[in-house]
């Protein structure tokens, strides 16, 4: 027992109050407490009830102790000896409490992350000369307390490489490195930062981080089919655009949670671009695994759809709120002041749109048309008769197949190819029908659609607590709400009653407004922590998805709160936040911990160094093919390659190269990437088709722009690693070039030189220095 060991004093808030709540609160809590005895605060314990004071500080013979030690209380359920000891220790040591009038609920609310951040004073530090942004003041103050100091500024090359990868996910070019090296103006670095923030590559890079949090994937994620989501990419593009235009983060959140409600998209004959964007944003609530199909039984539908609903709430809670809400689905949270009731109240926020018990369309039909209503009507007029014709044609074709199978010796087992071979008449008829079907199909009008969320009308089905998390076991009914511990008693969360004629419940809009109110304790903190982690590999709170009591405390709370309050003050500008961080001396100091690039950045960097990166942005994802070796690779990547964010994310068939570098499979979402050093990475770089092909392009690139071997080798080194090689490294490269030729006795001239430089390039792309940033 910790307390009995004498090493630690029993603490009221940590040890005693939870014990009393657990053992005694059923009878002795609140205004209706039995015998007038309320155990909820130290003050009420001292006051006691009908039998007098329950505790007398310092007196181990207090009434409470006598009762529990004798087993009189709780009746019929004597406390374990260790718990009695704990109570005795606490009382004997004076029954201290930080706040004698605070209940457990009051204390829960006092957890740092559940209190609105207050802008702290910027501390004064001795090493004032190192303070470039207030980030430094906070960091240096903490260091100086421990007798530490910042490390010196990193060299220009290392810094440029770091900031370019961090902001854009790509390496700097040698030209950019030379320009920065030569730029002696005091604002040289600031101008580099501005250039990077203005680059469209910035949005692609930051979107990747956000799509992890959102659990983005291009496939539904269940059943063998793992159906591809034809239009999920519009949400991906929305996210890239939002970062590039520095959409204020509060707007970004509101659109993702309720863009449909805020924009009232139904009122437009044709949605204007800003409304289209708001609707695209709601793809955030459609990323979860979703198995609904047209042919599902209603009971299956409910079973699968509830899971989608639960996962969606988990994505919202973990990515935006940093709370482990999902642990309260089956019972009250074991470590957090989150109740099961909180869980289902928050779930009810989404009940207007996510309706597991119907009416709801299968996932792929829950779409909003991105076209004028008149066009939609026209499309319907055109398509309706065509669909009837198409059905008739397909039925006819099926009947023909059946008819000829009956004549074939293999009967039902005969393939169509076998039928065509055996019966020319069938071949002819089938071909004619196929042609007809194709012609009719091309006459259909297919309008662009958006995978979005929307309420069906102003009502929502009733919501309940589900006993043990089972949707078939209804407990108390619940109204839409937010976790009680986060609700402001002065201004409690409420959903305005919708006009019955409204097309939406307004629940998500109310929730989004609450979540993005400037004083919200979590929203800004969670986001600044995410951005911070994007620059340092680890957040100020290391658990990005858990700011609760069970998570670790921030390593520098004042800094976190200063960043969070500053973020809101600066209009929730993510770019401004990046500036504050990357312009700091803390960010600019020499590294003591190299960080490995994420999978997508590794692949993108290979393409960039090899000169094959296709800068095309947006649109349908690049598909994959499964090679005969079993490798899943992007289609057509032997030549140019688009950035990895545009590659299809199929949950059942992850791309081999990205998977080997620890790209997550999106079961729900990914709060934090892990980094492994597995042999499959080494094999992919040493022997893989992608690495070999890109090395070949890389060799072409350096041989084309350089004359002699030395210049080509140095250029290759710089393209891959940014810095200039040392004389010794140049010697190593040149001796490799010289000796490597011997391994290709059958080759000569240009071909041999290309092969040797391909090998050199492949080695550079495989090197640790290529995929680690200092």
């Amino acid at each position, binding site marked *: 027992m910790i307390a009995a060991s004498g090493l630690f004093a029993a603490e009221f808030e940590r040890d005693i109050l939870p014990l009393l709540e657990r053992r005694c609160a059923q009878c002795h809590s609140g205004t209706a407490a039995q015998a007038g005895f309320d155990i909820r605060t130290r003050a009420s314990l001292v006051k006691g009830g009908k039998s007098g004071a329950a505790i007398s500080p310092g007196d181990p013979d207090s009434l409470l102790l006598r009762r529990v030690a004798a087993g009189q209380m709780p009746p019929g359920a004597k406390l374990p000896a260790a718990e009695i000891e704990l109570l005795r220790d606490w009382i004997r040591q004076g029954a201290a409490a930080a706040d004698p009038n605070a209940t457990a609920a009051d204390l829960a609310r006092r957890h740092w992350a559940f209190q609105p951040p207050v802008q702290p004073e910027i501390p004064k530090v001795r090493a004032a000369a190192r303070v470039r942004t207030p980030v430094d003041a906070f960091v240096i103050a903490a260091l100086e307390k421990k007798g530490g100091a910042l490390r010196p500024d990193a060299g220009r090359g290392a810094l440029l490489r770091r900031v370019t990868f961090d902001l854009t996910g790509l390496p700097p070019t040698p030209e950019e490195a030379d320009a920065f090296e030569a730029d002696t103006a005091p604002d040289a670095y600031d101008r580099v930062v501005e250039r990077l923030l203005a680059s469209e590559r910035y949005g692609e890079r930051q979107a990747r981080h956000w799509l992890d949090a959102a659990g983005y994937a291009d496939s539904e994620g269940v059943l063998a089919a793992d159906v591809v989501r034809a239009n999920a990419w519009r949400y991906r593009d929305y996210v890239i655009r939002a970062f590039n235009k520095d959409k204020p983060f509060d707007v970004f959140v509101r659109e993702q949670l309720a863009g449909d409600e805020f924009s009232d998209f139904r009122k437009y004959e044709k949605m204007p671009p800003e409304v289209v964007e708001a609707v695209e944003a709601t793809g955030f609530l459609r990323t979860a695994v979703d198995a609904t199909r047209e042919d599902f039984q209603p009971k299956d539908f409910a079973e699968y759809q509830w899971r989608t609903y639960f996962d969606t709430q988990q994505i919202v809670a973990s990515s935006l709120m940093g709370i482990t809400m999902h642990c309260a689905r089956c019972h009250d949270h074991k470590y957090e002041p989150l109740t099961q009731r909180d869980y289902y109240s928050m779930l009810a926020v989404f009940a207007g749109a996510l309706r597991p018990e119907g009416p709801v369309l299968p996932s792929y039909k829950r779409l909003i048309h991105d076209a004028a209503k008149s066009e939609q009507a026209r499309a319907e007029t055109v398509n309706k008769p065509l669909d009837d014709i198409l059905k008739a044609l397909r039925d006819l074709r099926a009947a023909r197949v059946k008819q000829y199978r009956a004549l074939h010796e293999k009967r039902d087992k005969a393939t169509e190819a076998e039928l065509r071979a055996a019966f020319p008449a069938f071949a002819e008829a089938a071909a004619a029908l196929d042609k007809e079907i194709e012609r009719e199909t091309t006459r259909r009008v297919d309008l662009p659609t958006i995978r979005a969320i929307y309420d069906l009308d102003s009502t929502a089905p009733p919501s309940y607590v589900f006993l043990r998390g089972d949707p078939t076991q209804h407990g108390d009914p619940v109204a839409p709400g937010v976790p009680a511990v986060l609700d402001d008693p002065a201004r409690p969360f409420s959903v305005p009653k919708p006009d019955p004629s409204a097309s939406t419940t307004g629940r998500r809009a109310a929730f989004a407004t609450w979540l993005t109110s400037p004083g919200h304790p979590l929203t800004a903190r969670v986001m600044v922590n995410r951005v911070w982690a994007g620059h340092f590999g680890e957040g100020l709170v290391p658990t990005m998805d858990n700011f609760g009591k069970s998570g670790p405390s921030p390593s520098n709370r004042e800094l976190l709160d200063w960043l969070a309050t500053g973020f809101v003050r600066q209009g929730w500008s993510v770019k401004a936040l990046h500036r504050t961080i990357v312009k700091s001396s803390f960010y600019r100091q020499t590294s003591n911990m190299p960080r490995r690039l994420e999978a997508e950045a590794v692949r993108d960097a290979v393409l960039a160094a090899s000169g094959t990166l296709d800068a095309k942005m947006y649109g349908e994802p690049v598909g994959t093919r499964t090679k005969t070796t079993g490798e899943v690779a992007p289609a057509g990547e032997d030549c140019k390659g688009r950035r990895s964010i545009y590659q299809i994310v199929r949950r059942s068939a992850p791309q081999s190269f990205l998977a080997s570098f620890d790209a997550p499979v999106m079961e729900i979402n990914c709060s934090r990437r892990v980094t492994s050093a597995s042999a499959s990475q080494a094999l992919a770089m040493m022997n893989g088709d992608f690495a070999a092909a890109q090395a070949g392009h890389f060799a072409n690139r350096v041989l084309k722009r350089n004359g002699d071997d030395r210049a080509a080798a140095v250029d290759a080194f710089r393209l891959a690693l940014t810095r200039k090689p040392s004389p010794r490294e140049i010697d190593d490269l040149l001796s490799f070039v010289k000796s490597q030729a011997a391994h290709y006795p059958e080759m000569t001239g240009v071909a041999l030189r290309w092969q040797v430089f391909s090998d050199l390039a492949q080695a*550079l792309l495989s090197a640790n220095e290529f995929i680690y940033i200092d």
Partner: protein
Amino acid sequence: MHIRELFARRDFLTRMSAGLGGMAAASLLASESRHGVEPRAPHFEPKAKRVIFLFQNGGPSQVDLFDPKPELMKRHGQRPGEGYINTVDIKKTGAWLGSPFQFAPRGKSGMVLSEALPGLARHADDIALVRSMVTTHSNHEQAIWNFNTGSIQPGRPSLGSWVTYGLGSENRSLPAFVAIMNPKGLPVDGVRNFSNGWMAPVFNGFPVRAEGTPVIDLKPGGSETAAAARLALIQKLNREHLRTRPEQLELEARIQSFELAARMQVAASDAMDLSKEPAEAHDLYRTSDPDAGVHGRQLLLARRLIERGVRFVQVLHNGQPWDTHNENESGHRKISRQTDEPTAALLTDLKRRGLWKDTLVIWSGEFGRTPMTEGKDGRDHHKFSFSLWMAGAGIKGGVTHGATDDFGYHSVDNIVSVPDFHATVMHLLGLDVNKLVYPHGVREEKLTDVSPSKLVHGILA
């Protein structure tokens, strides 16, 4: 201040695990290590050191292979009574379908097995048959997740991940956990069948194939000496890089991963090269048989990997061959023909090579099939009863454990749940399923999640 906050995470883990015994502490810390497959001691003296898991995707039919039901034969064609329903779709509840397969006692033990499995019949005295399995879901995916990962929720680590997390690897040149794919394609639910879930990626099953290219990128495309020279340059660059960044464990680990990859090129190429097996072994496993050849090669490869100290080998079919919604009889005859003799060969081979004493073989699908028809001549998914067998280290041969009702519909006697099965497998490996925990978020996760489990003592030697 909260006590937890006083400690860095690693110290916290040490403290947390102090109450769980030293082994758990070692395991917990290993999970923090990025390259945590070094061998680890089990919780107690193990019976088995390695596992070959023959996963039968689709749900083999218990009443046609392992569990003879005379009453079902008698009632063939009759409508089942109250309560005997098809749990996938009640409307599809068909008439009782007696098995068209003949059953007979086999071996000295007299274990009753179907004519579909003549090879296994010769090993009746070697295997322990469990006829009383139950699972919790009638859909493939959920049931596969349950059987492979301990929960009907997706995204958890698979059995092989837990075993390699618990015990590490005995071989420094091969992955600890290998999934042998059917060259024709992935099983249903794809790579999730051998996924590490939220465990460190090092515990992921390493996919290999028993034909064509066994391991993606194992061999350089061109000259091997040129590739070796390339590797030498890579490592020269890496060591120079490390020299100015001393004591960076991650950089060192990656240097080692290139060494491992180089060793794998040799070791895995050797392990995967079935041409090194004598003709007699090929005959035994029927590797050139038009029906059984593919599975024969998979199992011969499994034996070669086990022999080299791979901890966990999972053998997978493509798709889900046992899923006989139509033509149940011919379907079961076909897949039995493809798998039975190679399976028997594996058991024979393990015994004669002395691998029997520390290798555990598991044969199971994710659920069983209905004793009623689906449609004309099929059987649907069934969660209330199915059969599995285990053999080898720590298993009592010739045992038939548990029983179903007269129709093979409900397991009724000595019921074994999936968590019971998991606990028993881990027990055989010297691991206590309740002590092997992996920290994940705010929880400490176990293979059996929150389900209670008990050991299946009846099948233990």
